[in-house]
């Protein structure tokens, strides 16, 4: 058997089986992102594809090459037209299965075949005119070229087109008199409507109301129409017999590799459609350079895709999405993130996790440039909303979960801990946090640790301190800008005090002038 042609997998594609949603999806808001990606693409069953990150640089590169091709307008136009026509074909096929009258079902089937033949031929023609850089699309082009030049495909197209032409040329007259309907062979008779229009044309005074009724076009014809169609069939027996035979002969006409291409294409197109408005709003996406060896991480002007999508869709071009840089050089592995609440810490943590998952899917990531490690897995621990009976219960629950992460994580994992131990005392949080952090450092995994404990930021060579910031002039405005800086829990308090005239000197003068 011939190897399957795939634009998602350079080697043999994995066997189709259900893939559960990864644990990190909800925390990183990847569940929302995938939800948007599936919107308007339900028929393709794409969810498993977005849940399976790749683990080799080659596999990622295979997809990145396809994306590069698809980012070109002329390639997008070609495959976009293909996908659109295939959707149309499936609509036809659905009607060909579900309608009541055989004459109608057969016609929809015929039209589906017609659309299919045109679509495949058009795809071949447009792909052959393009310079394709990716192995994935080149494989499809070769396959479609072989398919189109096969005798069986050519015969299919010719028969379908011939039958369509004969049916479209079928004309007839209906004479309705009382309750009797007579179907008659076509003959030229004067058009009464045209004559009426001509008679009254002299009064025309510009645009007038349109009185034409809009009839509801049901897919299913009624029994009067069906009887008329029977009459038409009796007047034209040859073409209707031919139609019936055609449908029996070509039941399974869709090539399996074409069908797979149609689905796999949507994996890319859905994502490119999702990010297009964000790009239009000035946000950048880039093809990340991924590595299995170096953990050096450098991403410029990146952002939380889920948040940016919400802001841009809600606010159009006015949306202000704050971008951040992430950098881990040499032996640096852990970012300890502190700073005022609502300053963008959680957003930053999510961004870090999203970047690694999206890069491992072979897709463009938020940012103007990105160099990322290709992890074996992304682990997350975000503070849970659901109520747990006691504070102690909550603290313990967190510890269980973090423990489980440390059990399963390897040096090649990415770990995101958000506001860990936020519900306990500073002393406990520092104590436990220090311990956890030490183990993370020991593990050598890439990690973001969001905490309110400043002291954690100073734990060793591989730990980098970053802070969320506020605008010094307007401390109440959150900036979402996260910068590399030593932790300083007093900065925000001083700024907000100044704004309200409650700084030390000010307050003293106000109380005792």
């Amino acid at each position, binding site marked *: 058997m011939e190897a399957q042609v795939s634009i998602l997998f350079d080697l043999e594609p994995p066997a189709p089986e259900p893939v559960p949603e990864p644990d990190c999806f909800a925390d990183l808001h990847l569940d929302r992102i995938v939800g948007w990606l599936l919107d308007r693409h339900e028929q393709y069953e794409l969810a498993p594809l977005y849940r399976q990150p790749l683990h080799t640089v080659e596999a990622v590169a295979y997809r990145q090459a396809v994306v590069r091709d698809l980012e070109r307008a002329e390639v997008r136009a070609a495959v976009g037209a293909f996908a659109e026509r295939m959707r149309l074909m499936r609509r036809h096929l659905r*009607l060909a299965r579900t309608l009541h009258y055989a*004459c*109608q079902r*057969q*016609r*929809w089937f015929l*039209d589906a075949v017609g659309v299919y033949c045109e679509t495949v031929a058009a795809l071949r023609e447009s792909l052959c005119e393009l310079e394709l850089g990716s192995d994935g699309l080149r494989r499809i082009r070769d396959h479609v070229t072989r398919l189109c030049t096969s005798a069986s495909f050519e015969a299919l197209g010719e028969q379908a087109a011939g039958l369509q032409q004969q*049916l*479209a*040329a*079928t*004309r*007839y*007259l*209906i*004479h*309705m*008199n*009382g*309750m*009797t*309907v*007579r*179907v*008659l*062979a076509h003959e030229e*008779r*004067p*058009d*009464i*409507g045209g*004559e*009426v*229009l001509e*008679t*009254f044309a*002299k*009064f*025309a*005074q*510009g645009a*007038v*109301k*349109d*009185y*034409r*009724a809009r*009839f509801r076009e049901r*897919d299913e*014809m*009624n*029994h*009067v*129409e069906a*009887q008329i*169609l029977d*009459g*038409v069939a*009796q*007047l034209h027996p040859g073409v209707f017999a031919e139609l019936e035979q055609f449908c029996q002969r070509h039941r399974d006409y869709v090539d399996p590799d074409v069908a797979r291409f149609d689905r796999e294409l949507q994996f890319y197109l859905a994502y490119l459609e999702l990010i297009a408005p964000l790009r239009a709003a000035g946000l950048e996406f880039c093809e990340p350079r991924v590595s299995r060896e170096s953990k050096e991480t450098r991403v410029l002007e990146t952002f939380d895709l889920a948040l940016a999508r919400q802001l841009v869709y809600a606010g159009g071009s006015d949306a202000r999405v704050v971008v951040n840089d992430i950098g881990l050089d040499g032996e640096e592995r852990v970012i300890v993130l502190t700073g005022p609440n609502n300053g963008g810490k959680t957003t930053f943590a999510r961004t870090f996790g999203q970047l690694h998952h999206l890069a491992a899917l072979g897709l463009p990531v938020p940012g103007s440039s990105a160099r990322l490690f290709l992890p074996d897995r992304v682990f997350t621990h975000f503070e849970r909303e659901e109520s747990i009976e006691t504070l102690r219960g909550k603290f313990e629950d967190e510890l269980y979960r973090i423990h489980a992460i440390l059990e399963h994580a390897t040096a090649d994992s990415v770990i995101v801990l958000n506001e860990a131990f936020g519900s306990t005392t500073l002393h406990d949080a520092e104590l436990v946090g220090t311990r956890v952090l030490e183990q993370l450092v020991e593990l050598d995994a890439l990690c973001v640790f969001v905490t309110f404990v400043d002291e954690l930021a100073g734990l060793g060579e591989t730990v980098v301190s970053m802070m969320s910031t506020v605008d010094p002039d307007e401390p109440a405005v959150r900036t979402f800008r996260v910068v590399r800086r030593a932790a300083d829990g007093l900065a925000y308090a001083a700024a907000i005090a100044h704004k309200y005239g409650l700084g030390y000197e000010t307050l003293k003068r106000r109380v005792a002038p």
Partner: protein
Amino acid sequence: MRVHLLHTDRDFDSELALPAGAEDLARDLELETVWQAMAQGDKLVYEVARRATLRPLTDLDEIRHRQAILRDCLAHPDALHSLYTLAGEAIAAPRGIWGSLSSSPRSILDQSVRKLAVLATFLAQLRDAAAEHAPKLASPGLTRLCAMLAEELDCAYLERVGAHLRELKFKDGIVVSARLQASNRGAGYTLRRPREQGRLARMFDRSGYSFTIPERDVAGLRALSELEDRAVNLVANAIAQSVDHVLSFLIALRTELAFYVGAVNLAQRLHAKGEPTAMPVPRAGGAQALSAAGLYDVSLSLTVGPRVVGGELAADGRRLVMITGANQGGKSTFMRALGLSQLMLQSGLFVGAESFSASVATALFSHYKREEDTALRSGKLDEELSRMSAIADAIGPGALLLCNESFAATNEREGSEIARQVVNALLDCGVRIVFVTHLFDLADSLHRSRAADGLFLRAERGADGERPYKLIEAPPLQTSYGADSYRKVFGHDPVGSSVRWHPHS
């Protein structure tokens, strides 16, 4: 079929937006009084008068086209009124015809056929009335209209209309052609004339394939009537639109006649109190013509009992007419008479004067001090400047601007300087300006710099401070007559008026 009584080459468009500044102009020239006098309670006349006067013509032939028709109408008001009344009755007649409440093509068709039948009888009456009056009419506009009605609505044509209406009752059933579309359903339903066939022949015709829907098959009957609806859909639309077309022709006819009905009404009002009217002489824009004899303010005459005094004007070749002088010396009235006459000339109407001749302006604007504004001084000046700025957005060469006490909201020096800049700029752009002002600084400086193309008029002070409504050509005087007014009202001299600050440029 086009009416073309208000334009030579197109219909009167009563939807067209009014030009910028139209509202100010209407208010400043007190056009409301004129429209009311034209309408005499007829809303259509009011609306057409309003729109026609606020959209002045600029083409000399178009003005003459309306003037000729107006002459016919003034001479034969009976012809005008008979056509206007008939058109009105025709428009009202189909309102009494109701079909079923359904808006199915079958019922639209049935209703429209009956409406058309009624309209056809009115069309015949209209044609006959036009034929009766045609011999005494002289204007190309009305002559053409009568000839068109006679020709287009002749007996043969109306007979053809009748034949259509009979056919659309479908005595022999409905024949429709169709083709197969996607899904093998019928499409492209087009109503066809049945083959000419005797009743008997039809009964024994067994060609094709036929079936009969049983009476108890409700769904089948519904399907059949939908098919009938599809069959007559286009022709129902054609007939319904024809009703609309005929009606819109009648509405256009009545609308355009309404203007002349209004003009005749206004003439009768003025003549009744002995005021003269004259058909003005329109002149080309470049000629800078502007001269009048016995020019009076029509809107003032319509509101007071006695005849109003007319004035003379000889401003041919002058770009700027500056009017200074005594308060209540008739400055504003004179300027309104001038503006109103210009507007009436460019609407194709007669004017309130013994004679009037003027170049057509590309557009008319007015900039009046808004007395009723009680805002602070600075706010008032802001408001004036912003109005002038709006005018500047819309004005162009060849336009006429009427300024009444503009920029008097601030002190004389500042106001004069602003006004001087505005006036000089606009004059140099080819705008014609009539300016009423008591800003001596402004008037005096313009008198010196614009001696060649300016006309300076002064409200003449009569003997003993009496106000004759008369303007003479004279340079601006340094004092106004405010003291007179003051004295008249207060009964004593305005103390300190002699030390009033007078600027010298």
